[in-house]
């Protein structure tokens, strides 16, 4: 039988800066950073999807790059600067005027339908941002390998890969392919875009 000390006898004072705001709190040493972010710092955009560091839903930036906040103790983050999904847009986002101020990855995930339920999305975007910081023009395979630590169960990843490469193009200042939404009104087809041979092709109507 392990000896247990009563809860509350041992806390450590930590100070972390999250999305530009500094939070000082007493925490139990065992407190996981992701729980601290979600429950003390209001960062419920950062999610927990597993207990074995596999799914990547909890990915944030700390020390300038991507880490899994479920596998870090809050005490280990003392003094660190952290960015979460909620700090990625330049300003507090509105409901409707959607893409203004968004990070290119946020825009690209939206435009390319790189999310469905959205639960893995914060982690995907944070992992992708770290990937793009190291490789401004990743190939499809670079993106796939680079996101091996993030699981999505909805999308089959195809549109996530597209989204990351679209964001990379925007961040490099290149002209973007048209949004899938821009097409002739009323047409049942999606305009095929250059380089995307696997887009939905013209629909053949079998009578």
């Amino acid at each position, binding site marked *: 039988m*392990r000896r247990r*000390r009563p809860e509350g006898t041992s806390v*450590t004072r930590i100070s972390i800066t999250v999305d530009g705001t500094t939070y000082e709190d007493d925490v139990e040493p*065992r407190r*996981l950073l992701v729980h601290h972010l979600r429950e003390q710092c209001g960062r419920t955009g950062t999610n927990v999807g597993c207990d*074995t560091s596999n799914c990547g839903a909890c990915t944030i930036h700390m020390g300038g*790059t991507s880490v*899994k906040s479920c596998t870090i103790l809050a005490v280990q983050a003392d003094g660190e600067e952290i960015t979460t999904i909620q700090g990625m847009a330049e300003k507090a986002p509105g409901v409707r005027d959607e893409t203004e101020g968004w990070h290119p990855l946020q825009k690209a995930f939206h435009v390319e339908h790189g999310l469905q339920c959205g639960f893995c999305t914060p982690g995907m975007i944070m992992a992708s941002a770290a990937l793009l910081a190291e490789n401004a023009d990743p190939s499809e395979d670079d993106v796939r390998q680079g996101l*091996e630590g993030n699981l999505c169960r909805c999308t089959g990843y195809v549109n996530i890969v597209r989204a990351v490469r679209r964001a990379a193009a925007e961040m490099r200042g290149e002209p973007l392919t048209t949004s899938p939404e821009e097409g002739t009104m009323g047409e049942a087809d999606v305009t095929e875009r250059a380089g995307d041979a696997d887009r939905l092709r013209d629909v053949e109507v079998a009578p």
Partner: protein
Amino acid sequence: MIPATFDYIRAGSVDEAVAALVEHGDEAKLLAGGHSLLPLMKLRLAAPEVIIDLGRVDDLRGVRDGGEHLAIGAMTTHDAVIKDPLVQEHCGVLADVTRTVGDAQVRHRGTIGGAIAHGDAASDLPPLLLALDGTVVVQGPDGRRNIRAADLFVDYLETSIREDEVLVEVRVPKLVGQWGWHYEKFGRVAQAWAIVGSCALIKGSNGTIEDARVGLTHMGTTPLRASATEATLRGASTDAIAAAAEQAAEGTSPPSDLNATPEFREHLARVLTRRALTAAAG
């Protein structure tokens, strides 16, 4: 899941960490990157009474040129190892193998010292350290000592680092001369552990092999070398690779799990070693 409670000691130096280890004995665990220890604690498969955090011991980070070897601070992250110019210049195989460890986020946080000290036979770096004839430097109450890789890995998740010692440095030789290398990591999915891995290094020119090293991942309770294969190849021609690779599983005692029987692991070791050697010689 949630770890059990523990007392937390943030070491400011190696001396402080050693002092804490001496005080708390086997109730204490060192915390490096945490990517082996914290998942076990969250599942409550490990519940140390005391955690000694090495995260603030800054002089354990970084790569130093030690003359004939590179000295890598134990708290150097995998990512920093991969990007280090000294590693790239003098021991590229370390960068290449480290690139296969975990995933990007894990490499940003996990450390070389943590991965070696965990001593996991299924892990990628221990067999490489073995194949390189590397050394680790540990510090205890009586000062520092070196442990050769061949003497480091004792049994399943067990090393010869004593309970009151801290792994402070990993030393790998500079690869001098015409070395080629390749790591064949064979797993179920990208982020999974290797079912079997074979890391081959070959030194030689014009089809003659001066030296050959093969480290095997997940072929026993400890990381292993394919010693028979290595012996056959030393001084031989690269034409001998296929036959030598047939000896890759000699002396191994591979585990049985969902992914492989011992027999299948032995078969994989032979195939992967042949491929790794061929690529290394290429």
